[in-house]
């Protein structure tokens, strides 16, 4: 009996095609309340954090005091991965930029793309085939 079998698939996410969901879901900020390396971080927390966090309602900001350690910012992403950056001796401006860097990344590992375009779709134009050229124009060995 001629029949059609069906191979099941799991649909693949294409974030940003229908709706965009920010991959960064949580940011953990640790600081030391007396250490010299945390001066910039304390400054950031005191003066800027409230305004900065209110710009990103999608992200949960958690502040943790860790006495005796360097300040660290850690981003948690929807792909269950995390990225952390040590903010030792950095001033508030640099820390803010680094937070933006965490927010703008997807959480996946950094890798060098080999192609100019990365896509799930196959090429619209198709692959060039020498056999579909007009026989008079074909290359002859």
């Amino acid at each position, binding site marked *: 009996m*001629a029949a*059609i*079998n069906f191979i*099941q698939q799991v*649909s*693949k996410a294409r974030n940003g095609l229908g709706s965009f969901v920010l991959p960064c879901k949580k940011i953990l900020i640790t600081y030391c309340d007396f250490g010299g390396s945390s001066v910039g971080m304390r400054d950031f927390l005191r003066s800027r954090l409230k305004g900065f966090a209110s710009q990103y309602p999608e992200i*949960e900001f958690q502040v943790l005091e860790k006495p005796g350690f360097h300040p660290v910012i850690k981003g948690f992403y929807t792909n269950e991965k995390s990225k952390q950056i040590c903010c030792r001796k950095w001033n508030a401006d640099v820390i803010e930029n680094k937070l933006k860097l965490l927010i703008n990344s997807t959480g996946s590992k950094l890798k060098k793309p080999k192609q100019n375009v990365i896509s799930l779709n196959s090429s619209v134009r198709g692959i060039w085939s020498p056999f579909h050229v007009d026989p008079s124009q074909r290359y002859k060995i």
Partner: protein
Amino acid sequence: MLRNSRLSCRAVQLTCFKRALSSSPVKPPQLTSTPVKRRRFKFSYERSENTVIDQKQLKVPENKLDFRKYQRNNISLNISEAQAKKIPAVITLHARLQLPSSYKYSTIVRALTCPKEGEQYPDNKQLAIFGANLLSFYTTEYLITKLSQIANFYYKECGRCLYWRFSLADVAKNSWGIEEDRTSNIEKYLAGEPSLFRFGRLRFDRRVTRVEKGITKFGYPTETTLDDSTAFANAVRAIIAGVYAHEGEEAAKNFTHEHILSRKIDIPSMFDFKEPGKLLTRLLRVKGMEPLTVRLMSESGRLSNRAVFVVGCFSGENLLAGGEGSSLKEARIRSFVNALKAFYLYKPLDSKMPSDKEFNPLFVDEGEPFY
């Protein structure tokens, strides 16, 4: 003289010789269709697990048609809107999904609560059932208008790839960032986490638990135990049902289209034809077209070990599809498969769905009787 005349005759014959295109000697037979028993197809096969609710579990109101007043017996506690607003995971999920302001935070809490033994908070059971039906409706409608030529029973299969539990679990985990509540009460206490925060995570009775590294415990299934994927999928379904409850039908439709139907499924690669040649000849016979002929269109290196053949399958003078392969047989079969896919995966341009405003009725193939 005689010789000369014979020669001239041969010459005439040679000049007259013309290579005819090979075509099938079989003429299309008169189509005599025996009445085939019609199958009935359901468009919606989707439903979430554990759908049956006993009437004992329900408080039935006096007016039995007032569906809003039905309540479950076991629900005695409730997370209020003010409490739900204090949970960071709920607020961020609300913002991440860009839910409208009318969408209550307490609905998200409810969507993340699966039925558990001895659970006193309202759970997502009914929401998930409703959401599942919504999802299957919008998916079927979308696929029927997108691919109007696929036979009825493959809509179910194509749709399943979009809304079955593994796809929805992927939406919940890897796109929306819903977390499951893994930590025990002691761990939460030691971490100094308020007890309210557990409502921001997905809570369900796990059937499979990881006791420690290398040891996995498969528990006995009870009424409330769920697989991971089912629990996550139910949360997604419940959230979609919540959109319907708060914002109405149009918003629920947009939400499913943006978050679930925008995902990629590769439909051509799903089909696995067994005996594609038979299928194609039957299809042509049913459509009253001329029978199939296969012709070699071009080739290269027939005697080498890297031979390439390009073959076309024709119905009369019409090229249905081409196929290429390293042997004649392979190329032939590929051309059949391409022809079948070209027929079944036909997409009408600018098709509108029945729930759209400017909907024009469109032709939907009900499928061939020979399957």
